[in-house]
């Protein structure tokens, strides 16, 4: 009801349906062709994602934005069926705004997390049918605890807090191992990295994923295409400009120059 500031409920009262199961071809796999990662660094959380969208063996699009800002303090990185994922982001974006405007206070960080898992639960039939699975990573700044946090979900809506990092998508097995190695035995733990070092790590990790996973897009220097990298700090969400990514990629990711 409107008085409770629940936008999703309002939509449903108006006949809106989310996550309808559609019978899919038998044996269809959960399509999560992408790589997204979130890691804690010195000043907050860094979230990054490649930009490739695929359908089977075909590359559909190389400029997808999979790291989406929901409001000034939260970001959702998506792996899975883009149609469902974008719809989820739209519902969340409107839900958070509607709550703030009706209740005259921000929805708490806990409340935001609940909203994400509620949507995923609504989506279970579609996810199981194979036509709407989404495996998001949600990151945001928790004002009450004064820290940026990372949560990851399974397709059924279970929510897990990531202590140091979280990954999702088809390229994630590759970089999961690297993240563990770098974080444990690297020169310094990820959580102590300054902004630029964290960005370099993200670019290197995504390049590694692209190396071994055909569904993850790497850097395309000819077209000036770089991954999307966003930072979440107390001041809000900030996107690292392509020019900076280009500079870091050339000096810290490429070898032999």
């Amino acid at each position, binding site marked *: 009801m409107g008085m409770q500031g629940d936008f999703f409920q*309002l939509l449903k009262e108006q006949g809106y349906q989310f996550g309808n199961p559609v019978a899919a071809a038998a044996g269809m796999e959960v399509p999560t062709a992408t790589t997204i990662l979130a890691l804690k660094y010195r000043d907050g959380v860094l979230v990054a994602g490649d930009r490739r969208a695929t359908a089977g063996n075909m590359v559909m699009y190389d400029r997808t934005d999979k790291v989406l800002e929901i409001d000034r303090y939260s970001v959702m990185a998506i792996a899975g069926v883009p149609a469902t994922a974008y719809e989820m982001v739209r519902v969340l974006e409107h839900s958070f705004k509607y709550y703030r405007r009706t209740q005259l206070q921000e929805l708490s960080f806990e409340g935001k997390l609940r909203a994400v898992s509620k949507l995923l639960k609504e989506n279970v039939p579609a996810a199981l049918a194979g036509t709407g699975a989404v495996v998001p990573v949600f990151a945001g700044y928790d004002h009450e605890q004064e820290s940026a946090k990372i949560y990851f979900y399974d397709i059924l809506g279970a929510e897990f807090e990531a202590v140091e990092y979280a990954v999702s998508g088809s390229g994630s097995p590759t970089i999961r191992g690297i993240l563990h190695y770098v974080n444990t035995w690297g020169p310094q733990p990820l959580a102590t990295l300054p902004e630029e070092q964290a960005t370099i790590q993200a670019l290197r990790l995504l390049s590694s994923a692209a190396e071994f996973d055909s569904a993850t897009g790497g850097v395309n220097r000819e077209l000036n295409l770089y991954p999307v990298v966003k930072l979440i700090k107390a001041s809000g969400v900030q996107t690292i400009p392509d020019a900076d990514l280009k500079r870091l990629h050339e000096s810290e990711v490429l070898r032999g120059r």
Partner: protein
Amino acid sequence: MYEEPYRWIEAVGNRRQYLDEQFAKGSPVVALAYADGILMLTVSRGTPKLYEIYDRIALGGMGHPADLEKLRFSLLEMAHVEGFNRSPSDVTGARLMKYGLAPTIKQAFEEIYKAPFIAKILLAELGVKPERDLFLSINYDGNFEESLGWAALGATSSVQGRMRRYVESQPAFAQASLAQAVELALCTWAVGSLAQAASESPAAESSSPRVSDEQTEGDGSSLPDKAALLAHVRQTVAEKSLECVLLERRGPGSAKYRALRPAELGGLLPPAVSEPAAT
């Protein structure tokens, strides 16, 4: 008995008189476009009177808090469902006013067996370009009007007329800085507030019984000077709180609404209001 046309007209007339009285103690609301967006300002006691409706739309109200809440919720619902189902750029002040507010308010006003909304509402909409900034205001009877540059709510049309006369006597403010805009809005607010106080007092009542036409009263008396206006603001602010919100054209993200925090607003006030009184 209201079936007879004359009775009905009489009942509506009574209603106007009743409603006009309800607003007499309310605080005027002023909204104006300045260099970086739109500013809306009022003075409130306890319950806020300025609200965020959508990404580029702010609301200012006068009247009964419960009625304002009801109307505000219906606007929020309409705006968000529309913004979700179509797109945020399809949520416009004009549509909210024409299809959301006006029919509801007019119907409640004319259904004489039921209670009317004790509410006047001002919507400010930040355009993509400055020339498309729009102000829409609606009266308790469902009459609404659009204006460019600025708009204000006051208890009666004569109060609003005086505020208009003041704003029009001032230099152009479309390129004004935020501090200059705050000062102009404060002075305009004070013109309205003083006019309401004057029509409340028994002396004014006896000399000019209920003049509601803006020409008659508007031209009658001269407007107070800036020092007197700011002194009135200063006096009022001592017991009530100033409320000021912005729609910032270059604000981050899609939602352009921002309420000024007291500390920030304090820094923008003209010295005649913020500094301790000279002895």
